[in-house]
């Protein structure tokens, strides 16, 4: 049983090395390696999850031969293992759903490079999830950025190049702030391991000597990660990056890459700074306010948007706002809702991106709304996928999005100061979501008998259909059996503390 303690490390190293191996393989072999590696990492994460659920406590894995204050560590609890498993599932389904499009949009000679980037992205996500060392986290944040930039620019058109440049600049601003923040934190505490830093931080607060530098340090790290995860108003790079890159990239970036940073932020809040310390700073209110603004302005931009893919991209801005609002509520219930929404949004948004490409493909590759009329009949499975994704994002019962909205509302009730703004913005944002998603759903199910576009049969794209069916099942499973997931999140957050 204790051998399972090696699995987090094995899954990180496996993905890292498979990235290197894919660079010398032909495209087809690289694809097999990629699928195998994602599956194996998922299975390993599932075993780790089972192990920590059975033992009921997290474990620390020592990297190398140096014990705690000096060496590097990996730490796995319920939340880490669940997040890693979920990331693997979403990534595998996104790769399946976008495979046909990848073949069309990216030159044959570059396919293996694409799988290199995907493997590296998964590696960095797993490392961000499992690491117990802040500087290691920084290094993998940068690997994540580089891999994500590559995923955007692998489709070589002007739009994606400019979007990749914007993405890099914004990301580098964010990681610069994160880097200086954690260097200052190292300076203040003398440690790089999360648990040691937290002890020192408590000592500093008890002494009262470096209170102001500590707050500045926390602010630098939090703002850095907020910029990297595209919190409003730092989302300018997002619509083009998600709207024009190849579809697997868009699904992976929106549902995984930004979530890795948010998960790191939650980890920093709990394991480095301490939840109560963070709650006593005003930074939490800043996150709350920007989260609320993102929910409104992201949705407004989505309503104004003329292209269907950019509309979904803007919806991501709003959904990231939900997560930050949950963190900003400053209660454990708020944090549970935020973590649940990471799951719900990842499942819903990846499904939407994969489904929308099926719709635009049977509409003459046009992104305009008018051409999508009746697309739900021409590509039935994509239509169903889009509808389910939309309903989940709007927050209709039995789908995942509904549960996260309920959790947000319940969390807000326990925080009297922030109750009113949360409820109002939650209601307004839900209505705005409903406007643009339902508008699109009605559009794709409006019959257009004189349409010049031809439909596509289900058996022509079996893998795509399978991906959509599994995504729909995932959304319904998250929505129908939310209690075990919420319990697991709660256990995981308790293990953090």
């Amino acid at each position, binding site marked *: 049983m204790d051998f399972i303690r090696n699995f987090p490390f094995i899954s990180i190293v496996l993905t890292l090395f498979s990235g290197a191996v894919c660079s010398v393989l032909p495209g087809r072999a690289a694809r097999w390696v990629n699928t195998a590696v994602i599956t194996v990492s998922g299975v390993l994460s599932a075993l780790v999850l089972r192990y920590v659920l059975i033992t009921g406590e997290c474990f620390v894995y020592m990297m190398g031969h140096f014990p705690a204050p000096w060496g590097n560590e990996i730490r796995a609890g319920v939340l880490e293992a669940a997040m890693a498993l979920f990331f693997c599932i979403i990534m595998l389904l996104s790769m399946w759903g976008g495979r046909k499009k990848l073949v069309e949009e990216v030159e044959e000679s570059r396919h293996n490079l694409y799988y290199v980037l995907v493997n590296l992205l998964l590696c960095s996500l797993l490392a961000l999830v499992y690491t117990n060392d802040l*500087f290691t986290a*920084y*290094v993998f944040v*940068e690997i994540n*950025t*580089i891999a994500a*930039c*590559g995923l955007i*620019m692998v489709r*070589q058109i*002007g*739009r994606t*190049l*400019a979007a*990749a*440049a*914007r993405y*890099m*600049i914004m990301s*580098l*601003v964010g990681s*610069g*702030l994160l*880097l*200086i923040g954690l*260097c*200052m934190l*190292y*300076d203040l505490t003398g440690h*790089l391991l999360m648990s040691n830093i937290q002890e020192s931080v408590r000592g500093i607060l008890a002494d009262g000597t470096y209170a102001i530098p500590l707050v500045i340090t926390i602010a630098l790290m939090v703002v850095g990660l907020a910029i990297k995860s595209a919190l409003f108003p730092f989302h300018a790079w997002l619509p083009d990056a998600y709207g024009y890159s190849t579809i697997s990239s868009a699904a992976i970036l929106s549902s995984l890459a930004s979530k890795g940073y948010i998960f790191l932020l939650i980890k920093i809040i709990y394991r480095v700074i301490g939840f109560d310390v963070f709650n006593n700073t005003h930074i939490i209110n800043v996150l709350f306010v920007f989260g609320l603004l993102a929910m409104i302005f992201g949705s407004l931009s989505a309503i104004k948007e003329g292209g269907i893919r950019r509309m979904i991209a803007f919806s991501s801005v709003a959904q990231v706002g939900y997560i930050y609002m949950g963190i900003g509520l400053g209660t454990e219930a708020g944090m549970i809702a935020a973590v649940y929404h990471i799951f719900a949004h990842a499942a819903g948004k990846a499904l939407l991106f994969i489904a929308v490409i099926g719709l635009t493909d049977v509409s003459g590759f046009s992104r305009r709304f008018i051409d999508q009329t009746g697309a739900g009949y021409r590509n039935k499975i994509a239509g169903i996928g889009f509808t389910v994704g939309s309903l989940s994002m709007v927050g209709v019962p039995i789908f995942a999005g509904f549960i996260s909205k309920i959790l947000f509302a319940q969390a807000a009730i326990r925080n009297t100061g922030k109750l009113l703004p949360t409820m109002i913005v939650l209601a307004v944002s839900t209505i705005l979501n409903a406007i643009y998603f339902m508008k699109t759903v009605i559009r794709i199910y409006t019959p257009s008998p004189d349409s010049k576009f031809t439909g596509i049969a289900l058996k022509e794209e079996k893998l795509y259909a399978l991906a959509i069916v599994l995504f729909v099942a995932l959304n319904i499973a998250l929505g129908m059996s939310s209690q075990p997931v919420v319990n697991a999140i709660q256990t995981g957050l308790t293990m953090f503390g």
Partner: protein
Amino acid sequence: MGVNLLANMLEAVSMVLFGIGFGNLLLQKNLMKKIIGLNIMDSAVYLFLAEKGYIEGRAAPIVTDGVRSMEAYINPIPSGLVLTGIVVSVSVSALMLSLTIRLYRRYHTLDLDRISMIMKREE
């Protein structure tokens, strides 16, 4: 205030440099100048780390003449962090430069705002 500033001269300089680099990365229109800003910003962090790891009157942490006492050497961890940071910074700079070359070949300008304008005109 003045005494503190003098005692922490290098930290203050590194923060000023960080600010300069950060401002350039964020506000310059020219992509090359942005990359230069990025490198100034990263170098400022290395200066900060090197200064924090240095202890007056001690030697580099390489065991010579069998002296193994911890008191003889400076803190080696910040030097390690600087090395790691340099590797990261080199790779992101290389990626940014290659991206800049591609954008220049396609649009014949280094100005991101003009690139956006050209893109809109093309559609």
